[in-house]
Every structure is written in C-alpha cells, then in structure tokens.
C-alpha cells in the first residue's frame, strides 16, 4: 500500500501546545483561584473494613477557620450514588464512606476550612468510633463463599463472572497434538501522574449553575455530576480549558467532583480540593488492574497454536465503578495478532478491601497481552522452537485482512511480518544474539525479550453492552465545531480536556490539511460543557480517529460551502471548480479567494446562493466507524482500528545483584497514518517507560493487615530517566480503511507490549536455570533470590 502524501499530516511539526507548557504557562486546576475560596481535606480510615458507629466532629467544628465537616451519612442522604458500569445496584459508592469503611485510606469525612493547613489541623480533632470487620485482600479468596463480602448487601464479592466460548474450543483441544497450561499475575500498578487529581467547584445560586474546573479525563463527566447531585444536566458547567497534568486513564475524579460540588452548593462558596500524594495513592481510586491469568493453549508440533482457554480474575478493589469493563476491552483482541481458531474466556471481577480500580492506559489490554505473549514463549519453550519463528508462524498475514477473530471483532489492516522484519533489521537481531551470548560469557545473565501485540483503538465501548445486558449503548461519538470569523480566521472548538495528547495540534493539523491553510494560524478553543457538542473524551486510543475524524468532516462541510459560494459568485457549476490553498479556482483561470468567500458570507447576504445561511461555520458529530451493532450471542465487533507493535529487548543482570539493565530496546509501531510524529513518538516512549515500571518496579502492594505499603514515591517506584534506555522506534504505516486519513490510535502504545517483552527477556536470561518469573513486577531481589536458591 502506498502512503498518501500530505502537506501537514505526518510532517515533523512542533505540537502547538509545547509553547505554553515549556514556558510554564499552562492553566492547571491548581492555577484556578476563585475569590473567597475554601479548602477541603478528607479524613482517611485506617481500617481496611469497619462499621462506623459514630463520628465526633464537635472539637473540629469549634476550631478557628473551620467552616464545616461533611460526613458520609450527610452526603449519602443528599446525593445519588456514583454510577456503576455493571448492573450491581447493591454495590453503592458515595464520595465518603457511608456507615461502613471498605478499604484502608477510604475517606470517612471531609473538613472544609479557610485553608488546607487548617483543614488538616482539624482532621486530627475528629474522633471516629468504628468496629473493625473481617476483610479480604486476595482475589481468589474473595471468590470463596466463606470470604467476608465487601458489600454485604450485594451478597458476595463477585461483580462479574462470565464465561464465553468462541468457536470449537473443546474440539480444538482434543485434536491438537499438545497443550500446556500456566498462570501469571499482573501486579496492581497505575499511571500515577505527577499532578494529582484536583477540582474546584463554585455554585451560583442566582443562575442555578455549578461551575467545575477539574484535572479530568472522563467521558460524560458533567452528566454524571448532575445526576449524582440531582441537578439538571444544564446546571453543571465543566470548564474544558483546564490543562491536565497527566492522566492516561485515571483522572476520573467523579467522587471528588460530586463531593466538592455538593459542598460548594451547600456553603455557597467556591471550594477547592487538590489531592495530596498520600490521598492520591491511597484513595484517589485510581489503581489499575490486578489480574491473575490461568491460561491453557492447544498447539501442534509445527508450532501452530489452535486454541486458548483463558481465565482472568481481576481484583477490582472496594467498589465496582468501571473496573470490571477492563476485562471486556481485551475481548476485542483476545487472540492478539495471531491466528488462533477458538478461544474460551472466563472473566471474573471481584471486590476486595483494596483501593478502587480505575481505567488505566490500555483498559486491561496490557495485562492480557502479557498473558498471550507468555503463552507464545511457553509454547516455543515446550517445542524447543525459536520464539520469533513461532510467532511469525502464527501471526495473521497481511493478505488475511480484514480478519475476523473468534470473539467477533474484525481487525482492519496490518502487515505484522513486515513490521517485525523492519525491527529485526533496525536492531540487527543477529548481532543482538551475539551480544547476548557475549554478556553470558562474561558471567552476566542476559536475555532477549520479544513481544508482539495489538492496540485496539477508536474508543468504541461495546464491551459495556456485552458485559451488562441492561446497557444498550452503541453510540460513542466525538464532535468538532469550526467557524471562520469576519476577518477570515478559523477557530475550532474541541469539547473535552486534553491530558497531554496534543488535541489542539491534532485538530489544527487536520483542518489545515483539508482546507489547505496553515495550521499555525488556526485557533483552537476548549469551551465549557454547556457550550459543547457531545463527546466521550480521550479514552480507548480514540482521538486521532474520532476528534481527527470529526474535524476533517467539519472541514469538508466548510469546504463544500466555500465552493458553493464561489460557484454562485463565478456563475459556474460547482463540479467544475477546484479547491486549492483556501481558494476556489475556475477552469478559465478566475479565482474566488478565501477572503472573497468571507466577504460574501459575512457581509453580502444578497450575493449568497438562494437559501444559503450566512456565515462560515460547520460542525460534525461523528459516530465511531464500524460501531453500529449491539452484541449477539456473546460476540461483538468492538474497535474500528487495530495498531500493531513489536518489541525487541536485550537486557542483562548480574546474578547476585539481579538488577536488569536494558542494553537495547527497539519497538516497531504501526498505527496507520501518523498525524503528528512527535506526539506519537512521545506517547510510545512514555508507554514503554510505564511498561518498564510495570514489569520491574511499580506496585500498589498491601501488607497482610490491608495497609497499602507503597503510599508515596518513596516506595512506589517509577522508572526515572536513568532507568529508561534510549528507545529506537521503527515506524511502519498500514493505513486503516475505516478512517479519514488511514490513522489508527496510539495513545496506549508502548505500554501494551513492553511489560511482556521485559518479562520475556528476564525469563530468557534465566531459562538455563529452569527458573520462571510468573508475577509482575519482577523485583531485583526476587531475581537474585531465585538464582541463589537454584545454586544452593
């Protein structure tokens, strides 16, 4: 396939957001300062489970500067519970614990004071009388009928327990020559942005409107706030012109916004709440999946993998939220990039007395990719086949697209073999093997890691109706609105916050491309939710596809109008005209310029075609491509686009010290047409860094008493620039047939395969010792201890 040539798309242009961020002129939630603002500090529970008997706030209330103390009982009676993804009405969640505490760190009440410091002083004066209850931390234990239910009203800890069988699994297992089974565990980690979650809310009683500024990345945020607070949808105004200091999924903040919105309305003063690090880590409700996989694969002696049985048990934490859905998205790529004929999938989500889980980069896909790639390594090891050759044998071939997988999704396009070939060449695979052996000769444990995986993109969420039959949502739109002002300058509105994905650059590049004008001269605004068209925020690697798509379609509508005006003005049929560089050209050489059209549209109604409205504005509300059906028989097509990535890693460690050093990291990435190369590369680098953390360092670990041991950056270790090696990105472009420019998603890239690749490399390094690491993160101490135990 030949790549189309673009003027602005795919060109090396600086993201337009860079200027304000580099200059320190971003507008973050902590920059919002309202007159007469009050501050909030929440009181955290020390118990992982307890019944609250009494909260004595009397001493706190008498302190100077303390305005109010909100308890769970108060807010539980005043607002609606937060939305659940599944049909689990008895698993109720409020911003503060109501009657019962369900995890250590959960907020029990909130002090409102003239300053955050005073609020923290007051927290120390509140006396909680609570009776500790039995608790459960482990997901397998939570499954047992004997385990203490986190929500007794719900009856058990099971939120989701669904078995899917796609294709002839039983038959394939019987007929295949071999099978093997294993289990792996994906540790609880998250994206942990440097900016914690924050929200400012202000109630204007004369206008009956709640203004909200938040560091948020949440679909339908204003709707959810309004529903919880019993307000009309148009009484909540979320300001989208707030920069978000990192998110990649977790900045949902719905419990925070309802709490602060409630207080703002009650007290009639602006309220600010910015989580501190401890609050963010323990009770920001932003942990990622914690998942145990039991996998069985059936395969032939020649390496062909026929079938897979996967049981995925996810520890959702204390409340439901959207966590169980993170078992749903991987259904759309359940066979990874491989031709696996049939799959059974047992998805289980349980509550436990841990912090609540939230959406994290990849929405469950990275853990699943780790399980699939471990299966590939295990099969190769069983057959004593080369791991790379085994993958190449099983990969879907480029001539097989569109490719329908057993669970109902159709992969759009790809050339996986070509990407791998490019990576092997760029990384000089043969030399890499020699380097590995050389390191081994020097007494190091050296290994090569391999991972191939997919990034479903486009942000359809048909896993919702698939896992919750009461949910009939098939709409998952994004919008863009553009307007040419009376001086001829173009402004576009996007209707969501941006958490670093460069949406302003995306939209201006696309508009510039379609309208053939300089993107640098296009203004992008992010108005508030009441001035916005519907959208679903940047989730599921969707914005290049959806916001880029809506922007392109708006531009096409505007272009059509420009041509119509010109046709009328020049007295020529529109079909005979050509559009170039913002101007409309007639075959006879006459030119109807952009400014001519502006003049007519804004000031000369009498010269517009009959029936045409004045002005030069257009908008588009775009449905996700290919998203047009509800699930049938446990199958559904989910995402329009599937990006591919292939990771190749060489790492080595001293057998006593056990600290993996990455010597070489190459990733091949095909996300179709790239809109802005710098943004895509940046996200891939960041994703790989995040994956290095997930594989080696990062974990929200709990002690046996239910206390979070990694509450700050002292113990929750994220890789620094010292631990992230230079990364070579090898680009390939297989355009998607479903999108305007052939673009696919890339927001989750890197992270989806790097943990699998690093695990693969470490396991390769110790393979001669017959050691296997089956849990992430793989800490250096665990590596060294395992080797020492073998030698002993």
């Amino acid at each position, binding site marked *: 396939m030949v790549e189309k040539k673009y003027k602005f798309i795919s060109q090396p242009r600086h993201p337009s957001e860079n200027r304000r961020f580099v200059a320190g002129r971003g507008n973050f939630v902590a920059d919002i300062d309202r007159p007469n603002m009050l501050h909030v500090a929440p009181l955290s529970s020390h118990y992982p489970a307890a019944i609250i008997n009494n909260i004595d706030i009397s001493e706190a209330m008498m302190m100077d500067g303390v305005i109010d103390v909100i308890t769970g009982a108060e807010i539980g009676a005043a607002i609606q519970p937060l939305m659940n993804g599944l049909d689990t009405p008895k698993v109720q969640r409020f911003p503060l614990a109501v009657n019962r505490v369900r995890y250590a760190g959960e907020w029990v009440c909130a002090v409102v004071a003239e300053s*955050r*410091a005073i609020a*923290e*002083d007051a927290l120390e004066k509140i006396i909680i009388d609570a009776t500790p209850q039995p608790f459960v931390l482990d997901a397998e234990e939570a499954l047992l009928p004997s385990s203490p239910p986190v929500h007794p009203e719900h009856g058990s800890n099971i939120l989701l327990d669904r078995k899917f069988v796609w294709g002839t699994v039983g038959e394939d297992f019987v007929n295949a020559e071999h099978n093997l089974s294993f289990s792996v565990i994906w540790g609880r980690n998250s994206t942990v942005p440097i900016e914690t979650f924050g929200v400012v809310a202000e109630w204007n009683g004369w206008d009956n409107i709640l203004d909200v500024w938040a560091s948020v990345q949440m679909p339908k945020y204003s709707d959810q706030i309004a529903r919880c607070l019993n307000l009309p949808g148009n009484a909540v105004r979320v300001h989208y012109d707030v920069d978000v200091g990192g998110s990649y999924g977790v900045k949902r903040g719905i419990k925070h916004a309802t709490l602060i919105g409630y207080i703002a309305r009650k007290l009639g003063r602006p309220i600010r709440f910015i989580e*501190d*690090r*401890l609050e963010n880590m323990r009770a920001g409700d932003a942990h990622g999946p914690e998942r145990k996989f039991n996998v069985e694969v059936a395969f032939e002696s020649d390496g062909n993998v026929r079938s897979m049985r996967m049981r995925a048990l996810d520890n959702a934490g204390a409340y439901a939220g959207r966590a169980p859905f993170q078992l749903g998205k991987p259904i759309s790529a359940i066979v990874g990039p491989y031709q696996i004929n049939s799959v059974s999938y047992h998805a289980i989500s349980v509550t436990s007395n841990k912090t609540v889980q939230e959406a994290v980069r990849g929405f469950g896909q990275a853990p699943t990719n780790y399980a699939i790639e471990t299966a590939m390594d295990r099969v190769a090891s069983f057959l004593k086949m080369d791991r790379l050759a085994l993958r190449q044998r099983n990969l879907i071939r480029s001539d097989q697209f569109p490719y329908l997988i057993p669970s109902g999704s159709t992969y759009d396009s790809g050339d996986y073999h070509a990407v791998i070939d490019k990576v092997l060449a760029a990384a000089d695979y043969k030399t890499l093997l020699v380097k590995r052996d050389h390191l081994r000769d020097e007494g190091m444990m050296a290994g090569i890691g391999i991972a191939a995986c997919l990034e479903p993109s486009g942000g359809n969420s048909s896993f919702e109706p698939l896992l919750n039959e009461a949910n009939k949502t098939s709409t998952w739109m994004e919008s863009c609105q553009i307007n040419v002002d009376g001086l001829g300058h173009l402004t576009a509105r996007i209707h969501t916050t941006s958490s670093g994905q460069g949406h302003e650059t995306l939209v201006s590049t696309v508009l510039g491309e379609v309208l053939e004008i300089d993107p640098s001269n296009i203004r992008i605004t992010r108005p508030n939710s009441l001035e916005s068209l519907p959208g679903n925020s940047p989730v599921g690697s969707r914005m290049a596809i959806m916001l880029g798509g809506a922007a392109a379609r708006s531009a096409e509508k505007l272009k059509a109008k420009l041509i119509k005006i010109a046709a009328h003005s020049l007295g020529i049929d529109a079909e005979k005209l050509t559009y170039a560089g913002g101007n409309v050209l007639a075959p006879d050489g006459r030119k109807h310029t952009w400014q001519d059209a502006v003049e007519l549209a804004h000031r000369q109604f009498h010269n517009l075609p009959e029936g045409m409205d004045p002005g030069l504005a257009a908008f588009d509300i775009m449905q996700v491509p290919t998203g047009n059906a509800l699930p049938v028989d446990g199958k559904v097509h989910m995402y329009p686009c599937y990006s591919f990535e292939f990771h190749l890693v060489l790492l080595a460690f001293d057998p*006593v*010290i*056990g*600290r993996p050093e990455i010597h070489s990291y190459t990733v091949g990435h095909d996300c179709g047409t790239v809109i802005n190369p710098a943004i895509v590369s940046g996200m891939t680098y960041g994703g790989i860094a995040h994956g290095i953390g997930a594989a*080696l*360092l990062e*974990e929200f*670990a709990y002690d046996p008493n239910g206390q979070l*041991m*990694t509450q700050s950056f*002292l*113990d929750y*270790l994220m*890789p*620094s620039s*010292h*631990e992230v090696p230079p990364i070579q990105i090898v680009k390939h472009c297989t355009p998607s047939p479903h999108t305007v420019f052939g673009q696919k998603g890339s927001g989750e890239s890197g992270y989806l395969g790097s943990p699998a690749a690093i695990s693969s490399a470490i396991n390769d390094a110790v393979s001669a010792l017959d050691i296997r690491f089956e849990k992430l993160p793989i*800490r*250096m*101490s665990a590596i*060294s*201890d395992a080797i*020492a135990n073998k030698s002993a």
Partner: protein
Amino acid sequence: MKPVNFDYERPRTIDEACELLASNSNARILAGGQSLIPMLSMRLSRPSLLIDIAHIKDLSEIVATDTHIEIGAMVRQAVAKNAKMIQEYIPLLSKALHHVGHPPTRARGTIGGSIAHADPSAEIALVAVTLGAEITYRVGDDDHMFDATEFFIGPMLTVAPPDGCLVKVGFPKTSKICGTGFYEVAPRRSDYALASAAAQINFDSKGAAKTIRVGVGSIGDFPERLDVDHLLNTDLNDESIIATVKTAITEIETVDDLHASAEYRKRVAAHLAVKALQTARDEVREAPAK
C-alpha cells in the same frame, strides 16, 4: 501534607542556636531540609520550633587538622563532592557522595543533616562508620564528641543529645597510600539503597596494608563495620577477601521489606563489600609508584 504550626528562627551563631534549643524542648534543627521538610509535611515530625542553621557561617567550613578533615554541619553535599581537600584526604567520602541523591538534592542536602537524620541507607553515615569519624555536638557551651561507630543505634535513631546541635564531622585523613571502594545497589539510580558497602585500605610506604576498614549499610537498622582485621595477615587475594567478608557478615542482622528480602540484602552486601575491598586493593596496586 501541611506541617503543624511551628515557630521559625534563623540564628547567626552556634551560641544563639544552642540558646534556642535550650529554650524549647520540642525544637528541631533544620539544615538542608531534604528529609526533614517531607517529614514535616507528612506530620511525622511535629516540632514547635524550627531552628534554621543555614546562616551560621562557621558551620559551612571545611578545616584540615593534623589528623582529620572537619566538615561543618552545614556544608552542602554538592560542595563537599567538589571540595579538593575532601577528594585528597577523604577519597571514600568523595566516591560515596556520587551516590547521594541527585544534583538538586545535593545542592541543598548537607553532610551534617545526613548524619543527624541517621537513615539506615545513608551513604555519608556509612562512610563515617567505616572510617570511624568523630561527630561533634554542641550542647550549651560544651562540645560532645561521638565515635561514629557508636553513634547510630537504630533507624533514624542516634545517641545524639536531644538538646544538642551537630557542628562538625571529622573524618580521619587517609595515609599517603590508600585505596578505596564504594558500591551500592538500588532499584533505581540514587534510590534508597538495598545494600551498600564502603572500604578503605591504608598502606604503609612499603605497600603493606596498615589498616583495613569495611562497612556495610542499608541492610540493617544502621550502618555497621565488618571486622576484617584477619585480612591484614594476608596478601589480600580474592579468596581471603571473600572468605573474610563472608564470615564477618554472618553476624549482621538484616531487614526484610517489599523491595528486598533479608537474604538478598546480606548476599548483596557481602558481594559489594568484596567488590569494594578489591577496588581499594587494586587502586593501589595499579597506582604508579611514588
């Protein structure tokens, strides 16, 4: 993460600082603040008076005596790292300082602050114990001197007088011929180490080892010296180094946590101690004859 209310004073002299200390039983000294400020923010430390010693000029001096290099309590780690006198006479400390935090934390963090804070994984404390540094506190008008090997008694716990102000740390000068080695292992560069080791061998003019000092840190409640005097009678070959370290380290108690098992800490500390000794030995053996 807001500290409890406290008063703040910034005296100009040690005497003033000591007077302030005597005036309030819940006072704390603030030096570089790289540990204390986060502890204040998390309310783990709750002083009612904070005495900032940054403006006491005498405390920022590095002085050479006949036997020691005396480093004032307020000498910043970055300054110490670049100080010629320290590079020449306390090369082990110079090596260790490369591992202390990052450039921004070293720019504020002090030698004295690290000693007084007594983090079990602190590099400066490990060097002090290894070399037997002299730690001087001023209480009122009196100086109290402590031997570093007896100073640290637990995590963030020392025998320092509660009403005293650390004024200087005296590190013994090396002999003319001396080799040093410092190694640590951490999950990330400059993290709190999981194990660390420091070694210094002083040689006489004939090239025979006069004193051998080895210390291990980060593995127990405080840095400790290993007894390797047995090595003085050997030619410092690898086998005897390994055997001596192995024996010496058996008695050291190690801690177990999320990041590393107790066995790991002991195993790696021994590994690093051997490496540190080998490096110290090889530095001299490879050094050109004077």
